[in-house]
């Protein structure tokens, strides 16, 4: 029930955005993440973005994971 998946914002019109779930496109609401911009990744649950994925954080985690792997 708390399934939420990342999607990339393709376009924004007012409070709504068209997002790309890896090939599946859908209109969602940005009510809870009004700061989101086109090209940002958001986590979407039941038609609403519930968080703006910070690419910085995601990349930082990935680089930590990379370091782990190289050990």
């Amino acid at each position: 029930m708390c399934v939420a998946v990342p999607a990339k914002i393709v376009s924004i019109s007012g409070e709504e955005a068209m997002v790309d779930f890896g090939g599946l496109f859908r209109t969602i609401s940005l009510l809870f993440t009004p700061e989101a911009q086109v090209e940002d990744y958001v986590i979407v649950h039941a038609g609403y973005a519930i968080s703006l994925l910070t690419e910085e954080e995601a990349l930082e985690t990935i680089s930590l994971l990379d370091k782990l792997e190289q050990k």
Partner: protein
Amino acid sequence: MNLMAKYKDPSLFRYIIKNMSDLSVQPLTFMEFCGTHTQAIFKHSIRKLLPKNIKMLSGPGCPVCVTDQKEIDHSIALSHLQGVIIATFGDFLKVPGSDGSNLQKARAQGADIRVVYSPLDAIQIAQKNKEKKVIFLGIGFETTAPIVAASILKAVKENISNYYVFSMHKLTPPATKAILNLGEIKLDGILGPGHVSTIIGSLAWEFLPSIYNMPFAISGFEAIDILKGLESLLKQCIDKKPQVINTYSRSVKPEGNTRAINTMFEVFYEDVAHWRGLGAIPNSGLSIKSSYREFDAKHQFDIEIPDSKVLYSYGCQCHEVIRGLIEPPECRYYKNICTPDNPLGACMVSSEGACSAYYLYSYE
């Protein structure tokens, strides 16, 4: 680049498992609260791959599973009213009522029941069917409740007067406390729900280390995310330093999503809620404020549902599965009478229920 690919990397997965195996510790039991974690843990065979001294239990984090029998009966009764359309998440269709009925059977008998992805879809149904009353069955935790609240505010804004919500929403920290207060199972750490925490924030869980001395690690839902969360719990146990560790910081902030929280509490207030398996827990549910009463299906439709005479009369053991007292295969009906196609209990209905996940991805 695909941000998520790394979080599914099998070689990295094996590397973290090996790291965990190298840490020699006494047997530990961790519980995942969230049903989406339950499903992911089974899907990725994490239970099987973990070091043998780490045992996982599934908690009360599947909303369909913990919904009280009376509320299920109430939902089915609403579907039989004349001129009503029920809008619901698909998980809820097959949950058995106390008389053996369910929403799917009600639909076969002529009730108008629509499965929706979002309450926004239910609003659209209301706009297209002005002569009907559209009731959205509001189940879910803090992840979902702000969205349902937003749908009511949208109905206000757009002057939609045939939209109603039957709120069965529940709050996760009080249920976590209830499980610990019961003291029936000994836990060494809790894997924190990533999307509930995205809304309520990591700070909302500080009571676990401070009051219960309980290690807590918030985790995302990819295989690597879950392992990183479990690895954090393991380290906290070894260091004997229980904390709230946020391993899903790409989505979870300390304060959560304050806009979503404010929207939720604009429409709802904390109220006593009845949980399957846990009973009545104060301030663990969300009811609609009187200022939005015209949208509250509990007030707008006059239905009296009797208390179920004998709970668990047919011997369903979902209430024991939810509290972590038994594993699904220990239930007398698991896999013989109770299957996902023909579920006897709620834990077999939802894909997030422990029994369903066990059935679909078990390793025997």
